[in-house]
């Protein structure tokens, strides 16, 4: 059967979102970023919000997020994305404004900007990719690196006396008055991807409707940084990351009526 008779609008059960660009893929096989980018593109498309959404990309592997999702973007200095998003949203209050940040960007160099934007209740959504390692620079220790986990700057494993402890910034965020929605998700299975997409949609809705700050952490894999195959990385994440970074909603003040 010819291909063009198979692919008809009636037959389509799944397709790439129109907002996801055909760009050269710079993420490694097995990396979570690609899945999360796709979810963001799907959510913006489903909300019909292309002309109302501004993204702020970080420094780290996702520095090129703007090449993938076909919307307006600003590329921030390392850690400063929540400051940019604060101003954009305050000056254009009817827009959806989100940041997309890794663990080094959000939970280390940008801790002050993250905490204070969330604590002020800025009406922004923060998408936080936590893979417990610095991917872009080649696998160094992150603020979220697990105890005992080996990286290029803690090659014998993270030790409390040498390196301190992994930071649960999402738990901190849940204690702040300004946050309305704080959740931790993952994208390692179909079910998890569906839950993560609902979380991103919720966070974007919260930004649009000015309900306060939303933080969506995605516990993620970095197969290159972890020196594993994609399959091994997913398994390692389930076995080790989820024990420390419990998946699920940490805070949700939005009632069903508001939604």
């Amino acid at each position, binding site marked *: 059967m010819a291909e063009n008779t198979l692919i008809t609008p009636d037959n389509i059960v799944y397709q790439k979102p129109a907002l996801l660009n055909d760009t050269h893929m710079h993420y490694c096989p097995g990396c979570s970023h690609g899945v999360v980018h796709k979810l963001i593109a799907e959510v913006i498309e489903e909300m019909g919000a292309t*002309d109302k959404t*501004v993204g702020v990309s970080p420094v780290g592997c996702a520095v090129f997020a703007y090449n993938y999702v076909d919307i*307006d973007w*600003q*590329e921030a200095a390392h850690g*400063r994305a929540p400051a940019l998003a604060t*101003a*954009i949203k305050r*000056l254009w209050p009817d827009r959806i404004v989100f940041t997309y940040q890794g663990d080094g960007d959000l939970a280390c160099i940008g801790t002050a900007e993250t905490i*204070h934007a969330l604590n002020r209740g800025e009406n922004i959504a923060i998408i936080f990719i936590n893979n417990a390692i610095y991917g872009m620079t080649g696998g160094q220790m992150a603020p979220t690196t697990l105890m005992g986990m080996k990286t290029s700057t803690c090659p014998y494993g993270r030790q409390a006396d040498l390196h301190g402890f992994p930071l649960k910034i999402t738990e901190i965020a849940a204690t702040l008055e300004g946050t309305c929605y704080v959740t931790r998700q993952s994208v390692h299975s179909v079910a998890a991807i569906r839950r993560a997409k609902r979380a991103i949609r919720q966070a974007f809705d919260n930004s649009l409707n000015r309900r306060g700050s939303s933080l969506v952490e995605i516990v993620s894999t970095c197969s290159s940084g972890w020196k594993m195959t994609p399959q091994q990385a997913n398994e390692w994440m389930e076995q080790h990351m989820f024990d420390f970074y419990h998946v699920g909603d940490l805070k949700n003040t939005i009632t069903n009526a508001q939604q």
Partner: protein
Amino acid sequence: MAQSDILLMKGNEAIAHAAIRCGCDGYFGYPITPQSEILETLASEKPWETTGMVVLQAESEVASINMLYGGGGAGKRVMTSSSSPGIALMQEGITYLAGAEIPALIVNVQRGGPGLGTIQPSQGDYFQATRGGGNGDYQVIVLAPASVQEMADFVDKAFTLAFRYRIPVMILADGIIGQMMEKVVLPPFKPRRTEEEIRRDCPWATIGRTPDRKPNILTSLELRPEAMEQHNLHLQAKYRDIEACEVLYEEEQTADARYLIVAFGSAARIAQKAIDIMRGQDIAVGLLRPVTLWPFPTERVRQLSTQMKGILSFEINAGQMVQDIRLAVEGRTRVAHYGKMGGIVPTPDEVITAMHTEFTEL
């Protein structure tokens, strides 16, 4: 002009009132002496209830400057203010603004340094402002007010330049201009720009991609060296345009002068008095006051140097602008510097003494 239009206020207060009146969309800042009256005045004026201007006390100067990136990148007239150590913290953000070509206004009410230094006035940030403390080849336009009136007038001028060239503009004041009270006439009210005006004037702004255009992406990153070189060449061409078109300076009594004092900001006010006294003693001395420190009035200094037996660069620092003067003069005449540091403000008599010390024939 009605008498009631003339007000008495501090330079810092004048900046705040001028910002509200000239259609500023947002102020983002962090308290630091000697400029905290800017944020305090804005907070007490509550412009969010009148013009709709956003006023936000940020968690740091680092956050403030990055809020300018966000807001300016979204086509809005945004500003911050700080003093020397705070401006040092902003240098990362300023080079990002320059690289991504984001318009914004940064006010530096200078204090003495280095480090935490002193809260007393200084002009020690001339290098920081004109050379840039951030990384890479970039410039910001630097305006040096010498009166409370200029503090008020330069706000709108700075925004106009910032958007004309898509460049950060700095008002480089100091603790004297910020804190002293003078008569001032505030600029007339002008409305903030509408969304339609921003879409028309700032087609690059990130305010949501409409179906008729490609996405707007504001970034200073480019990994391909050929493309990064082109971007740098574009920036340099823009800087040459600014040097050709936007130099501002004022002169007093230079026509018959054989000696020249070059001074900016509050130092120019002290120099004015010194020159008046010396003129009474039949010394043919004049004043050149650079209003833009970058672009520097290089050509005018060069022209004037041919008639001068000596030039004194009077700055409240260890000698920074004097380098630009020497580069312009190219050895045609003697160039000396006089200044004080640590928050000490020289008197006119000390400037006169310096002239006699440097140019002993006087």
